[in-house]
């Protein structure tokens, strides 16, 4: 699908999201309890937050947080159904009641706050730059006037546009494509979330990370339907409890432990 089509789609989506405002909001908490399971929108193409393994099983940090929510609600962590969402369609899935909650590495932004409500932050993410080993690019200011690959709908794309307006952004649908563009030297740098780039650098020793420390930090939050206070409170209570006990730290270490020094801490 070409970019133009995608833009059209995106605008239609936003419009439909607005239309769906008219829908009455039933209490999600009662719905979930009556159903006996949670329906969570997770990514299936964004390791280490949400991906599928070779057997097709959902895995990742977000997936584990969903299981923790289910455990809190029903006492068993498999009382959760995963629905695959993408950055482009996750909000529409939520507002049209197809899922109960978004757990899809979603940065909290003012713009999105107008449409949905966020839980307390559950992850702190920043942005980094991936470049070739021989690159002179050291900090984000060095991107001025250069070709940079970004992934559509990512905060990496937005942040690059804001911080370095002269950088020529080339947007791709998927991280794999943004990376390929850098490897083929069609662009000089790739800007994305720190976690992802650290992972990509490990797989590609000919590349290195620039832009330390992660710039423009932004917290991730879980998304719920606007005005559904009871459900939001219940989600927040679970997250708070996880942070108080060891369970949050355990999950964090499981998925991000090897990058402990590089990543930002969630305050």
């Amino acid at each position, binding site marked *: 699908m070409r970019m133009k089509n995608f833009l059209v789609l995106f605008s239609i989506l936003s419009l439909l999201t607005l239309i769906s405002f008219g829908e009455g909001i039933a209490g999600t908490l009662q719905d979930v309890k009556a159903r006996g399971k949670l329906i969570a929108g997770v990514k299936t193409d964004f390791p280490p937050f949400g991906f599928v393994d070779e057997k097709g099983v959902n895995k990742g940090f977000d997936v584990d947080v969903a299981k923790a929510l289910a455990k809190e609600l029903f006492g068993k962590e498999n009382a959760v159904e995963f629905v695959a969402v993408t950055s482009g369609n996750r909000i529409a899935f939520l507002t049209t009641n197809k899922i109960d909650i978004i757990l899809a590495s979603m940065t909290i932004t003012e713009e999105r706050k107008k449409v949905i409500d966020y839980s307390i932050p559950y992850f702190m993410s920043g942005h980094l730059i991936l470049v070739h080993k021989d690159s002179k690019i050291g900090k984000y200011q060095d991107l001025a006037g250069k070709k940079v690959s970004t992934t559509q709908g990512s905060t990496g794309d937005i942040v690059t546009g804001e911080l370095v307006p002269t950088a020529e952004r080339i947007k791709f649908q*998927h991280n794999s494509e943004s990376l390929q563009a850098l490897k083929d030297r069609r662009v000089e740098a790739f800007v994305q979330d720190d976690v992802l780039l650290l992972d990509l650098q490990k797989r590609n020793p000919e590349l290195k990370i620039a832009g330390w420390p992660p710039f423009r930090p932004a917290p991730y939050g879980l998304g719920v339907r606007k005005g559904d206070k009871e459900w939001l409170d219940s989600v927040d209570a679970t997250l708070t409890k996880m942070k108080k006990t060891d369970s949050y730290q355990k999950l964090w270490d499981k998925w991000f432990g090897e990058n402990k020094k590089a990543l930002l801490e969630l305050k």
Partner: protein
Amino acid sequence: MMFDFDVIIKNLPYLLSGVKFTIALACLVIILGTFLGIILGLSKLSKNRLIRYPASFIVEITRDTPIIMQMFFIFFGLPALGIRLKTFPSAALAMSLFAAGNTAEIVRGAIDSLPTGQFDAAKSLGMNYFQMMIHVIIPQALRRMLPPAMNLFTTLIKDTSLAAIIGAFELTRAAQEIIERTFRSLEIYLVVAAIYFIICYPLSYYTRKVEKQRVTGF
């Protein structure tokens, strides 16, 4: 960057689980679309305005808007009116309507292209409308419909990949998930292309064979 067969072997079962959706959707859409399309096509040829106008309206709407928009409208738009469909029914409904609209045009075109003498001959034998259609017109029109219909079917099979946008898990989506995990796009895309080819090629081959045959009456 060596070619990695291992990635293909490891992930083939997962890809094939996506193929199931692709084939199920394609079959359903081709059957439903053909059935609806024939009804719509004949309605467009009707002398009765009350039948002809609504049929034309449906055909034009489905043919002149992108299939992806129709999917979006059904999946994300209808809930605003209180109609909630899950991914598979949404994709199937949207694509069937699209297929029906296009099939209707193929049916209408084929029947219109028959010489008027055929209609007059049938009437002079005292046949009513249905007898004329079943014994004289449709058998001849069918020959002319086959090639464009086959083209439409191959297009539909390839377009099932659009269902990924509304969250359907099909072949293209499965491939994308594997690529984002393994970063082996060349290998995975080659396999995906091969799978689509295996599904579509027999159809194209058959179409060419039919086209080569001289169109004669039954």
